């Protein structure tokens, strides 16, 4: 068994039905989709038991019917495992993993800024890359936000100053 298969087998063994799908794309690139309620348990298991000790980043992606969060983890820098989960678009919430991966705190802030996802348990979700007075309902990376809307928000902000 390749180490890629081994990791996915262990995940399936531990979480069973909670693992909704897996994919080995190529050497060193694996994907696993999980049930959203298991986020903290899966990441904690990967961090502590399987020693995935690096988080490259968190990708947030608006697929129309919901928001997908992808946690890109690496084992000894050489095996990239992307853990995916889907959350609701109307009330986008996920548990923070900043205590499991301290480096994740800043990536959660970025996803919060751009897609409006609330990470429960993250102590600081203040704006990281958007201006302080940015309108909370305008989340630039959402698919229905047009470039024109973003442009007028920037112009309105410039006028306030």
């Amino acid at each position, binding site marked *: 068994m390749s180490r890629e298969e081994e990791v996915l087998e262990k995940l399936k063994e531990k979480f069973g039905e909670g693992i909704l799908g897996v994919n080995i*794309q*190529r050497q*060193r*690139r694996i*994907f696993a989709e999980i049930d959203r309620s298991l986020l903290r348990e899966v990441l904690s298991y990967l961090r502590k038991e399987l020693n995935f*000790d*690096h*988080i*490259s*980043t968190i*990708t947030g*992606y608006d697929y129309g019917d919901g928001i997908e969060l*992808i946690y*890109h983890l690496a084992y*000894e*820098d*050489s095996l*990239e495992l*992307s853990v995916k989960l889907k959350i609701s678009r109307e009330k986008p919430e996920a548990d923070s993993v900043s205590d499991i*991966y*301290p*480096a994740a*705190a*800043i*990536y959660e802030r*970025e996803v919060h*800024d*751009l897609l409006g996802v609330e990470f429960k348990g993250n102590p600081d979700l203040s*704006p*990281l*890359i*958007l*201006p302080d007075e940015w309108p909370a309902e305008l989340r*630039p*990376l959402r698919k229905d936000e047009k*470039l024109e809307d*973003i442009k007028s928000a920037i112009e309105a902000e410039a006028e306030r100053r």
Partner: protein
Amino acid sequence: MSGSMIKVIFGPQHPALKEPERFILNTEGEYVVNAKVRIGYIHRGIEKAMENRTYLQNIYLSERICGICSDAHTTCYVQAIEELLGVEVPPRAKYIRVIVAELERIHSHLLWVGVAAHEIGFDTLFMYVWRDREIVMDLLEQVSGNRVHYAMNTIGGVRRDIAGEKSPKMLKGLSLLEEKTKQYIEMIRKEQTILKRTIGVGMLSKSDALKLGAVGPTLRASGVKRDVRKDDPYAAYDEISFNVVTNDGCDCFARIIVRCEEILESINMIREALKKMPGGEIRVKVKPSIPPAEAISRVEAPRGELFYYARSNGTDKPERIKVRTPTLANIVPLCKMLVGGYIADVPIVLAGIDPCFACMDRVLIVDSRKEEKRVWDLNELRRYGKEWYGRH
């Protein structure tokens, strides 16, 4: 906040260099007790912009994310797109990518050594290093026609060959660079001006570096042997021999030594790549539209792991492109390095992660007892650092 705690606001403007950032430092006496970061002053919305442009246009957009490691960005981007397409790049193109990437690393690291010298007031070294950096800039110009945006990569290969006169000229330039770099390393190891300002400054322990997600030379200077080129090889890195340089110093001095030694490794890698480079095509033709797929691409940029995630949707425009630059990964470790250090050391510690050179001009010092506010720029802070060290 206790009476003796003073909040020092660092940044965001920096007129001479790129990427403004603001650091809010809580200080007690001469010590930094807490550091917070605010970025985004030049957030350009490139991820959103990419969704509205074609794959080909996005090469040029990704190149403009960074003015120093522009080649790392295009390499990472085109690799992701090639994986979406399932295209294999011709072997010669892979070698050319390695050569340009290593030339870029040499130029970036030399630039950084100069900046680090400047931050501690050692401008003589800054001048010498930047003079010699021109050698590698000329080599890059010879290969690509440009000094900054090389525009070498395209989806399916590279746009220009390295052949004919270019190879012997490059070898000559590399020999000169090697000689100079060795001189600098010898000098840096002995020079009190550097040793006194960098040893034990900006400490980041091995466990903290790993825990906080540091990348690149910052991580390797804390004794962690990790390098995407070795661990997750791309282009032709699996066919080229090199050492992953590490240092157990965990301080600013270790970060200088790691980068200098990486320059020597890069020089040897380019020599080997020029010797081993196979003949043949340098690019393959690709289709403009890409069926739905997803891909992850990683590159060891001069500052560390650069990360791209790409997803296609069947059109000629991407559904989603996610970019994570190495500086963002190094920001949290940086806050840790600042804590417990002197205010006077803040410039060199900030420079220590080579923050693509961000931030930190205007400094606002608020004395909470007197409610007095003073605004400093980086020059004043640098002067303060030098004066403070003159007294102590």
